[in-house]
């Protein structure tokens, strides 16, 4: 049974995070972290905010690296297109 609120009001705001749109994906981006320069271009261009920047310790130094959140990535390929280091490749999604 579907519970409906009067006027389709949502009393739990910011709940869109619960709706995982990653299942829509037909193409899958794969990030090669060794090529990633941490420039954040993909992070800026991603229309779904599905890229998060994280910190890795490489050779004892902190480095910024991109990370793809597959829960929300719809596989549009914009990140792969914008990446200046060819660190992101697109391949067919296999589920």
């Amino acid at each position, binding site marked *: 049974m579907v519970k409906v609120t009067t*006027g*389709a009001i949502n009393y739990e705001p910011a709940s869109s995070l619960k709706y995982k749109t990653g299942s829509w994906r037909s193409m899958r981006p794969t990030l090669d972290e060794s090529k990633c320069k941490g420039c954040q271009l993909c992070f800026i261009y991603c229309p779904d905010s599905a890229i998060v920047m994280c910190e890795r310790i490489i050779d004892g130094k902190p480095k910024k690296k991109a990370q793809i959140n597959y829960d929300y990535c719809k596989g549009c390929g914009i990140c792969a297109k914008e990446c200046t280091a060819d660190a992101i490749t697109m391949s067919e999604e296999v589920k």
Partner: protein
Amino acid sequence: MPKVVMRGNEATALGAKLCRPQVIPAYPITPSTMFPERISEYVADGELDTQFVLVESEHSAMSAAIGAAATGVRVTTATASQGLELMHEMLFIASGMRLPIIMAVGNRALSAPINIWCDHQDTISARDCGWIQLYAEKNQEALDLMIMAFKIGEDKRVLLPAMVGLDAFVLTHTMEIVDSPTQEEVDKFLPPYKPDHVYLDPKRPITIGSFGTPEYYTEFRYAQELAMSKEAPKVIDEVFKEWERTFGRKYQMVTGFECKDADIIFVTMGSMTGTARETVKKLRAAGKKVGLCKITVLRPFPEKDLKEVLGGAKVVAVVDRSLSVGFGGPVYAEIASIFVNDAKKPIIQDFIIGLGGRDILVKDFETIVSKCETTIKTGKPEKVVDWINVNFEPAGVK
């Protein structure tokens, strides 16, 4: 209660004012312009404490009304014709979000050709938007229905917007004596609007106007349908009865006049009802069994009440002041639907009349009666959808 001579637009503006609306976004359009004019005078004179929002179009007027109503305040506005059509997409949003905005509509024809006079095409075209639709026969009804509409729409069982239709010029600009309730009386009748489902409170953040995916959408529409078809009729009946007890004026979703033994019954909406009533009186005096059925509430559709009033007739003559091009009269279609599964039913005929402000006279109703009498004799209408008063000669292209 003070009796005042006023125009229909003044009646709806006064009715709205007495309900203490907190926000009024409005854009002027003939024949409803007098509504925002009166409201701005009330505000300027300090008689009404409201946020009067001057907008750049009717689309903006309804958008502002929705935005305001979504904060949980009482909102009213007025429009007509092209203005109502410009609002069209927003009308669905108001009803879907269950915001009881109350709007006066000066029933006017639609372009092209441009025409500012009366017919019901504008509100009929907005019939499926999920708004309660009330139609006034006279200015007194315009005032009364305007006030009652707030109480009906704001009822927690209903929570739907409502439009009050009053005929262009015949009512909007015509002076009639109107018995106005006092502010104290209306304050007693109509409590302040305090919705539970939607209001502005930083301590309770909510999302409104959100996505309704295929898994949910049908259920939201179903909830809307239940509010309109199951709850609204009950609430309308209660409010009409309370109004009668308080102010002595009786309202019904459907009002029959001389229908008990009538062979032919007119179905009317709006100001033409008065003319139809005079015709019935005249023909009754001449021994003809003619009756009249006035529709005050078109949405929710009062199917049961209509069946009760019309069921015994030989011919039901639906008088349509609007047109579904390529079909016939919209009200006729709805009346016919009441009897569609019945073995025994009246013959239902449709008469298209009075478009674009052409007067509907007693002799026109007499023409309709004589056509219906022929139907009774032959057992079959000559034309199911019949146009009255058409002087048509194609001019072609020059």
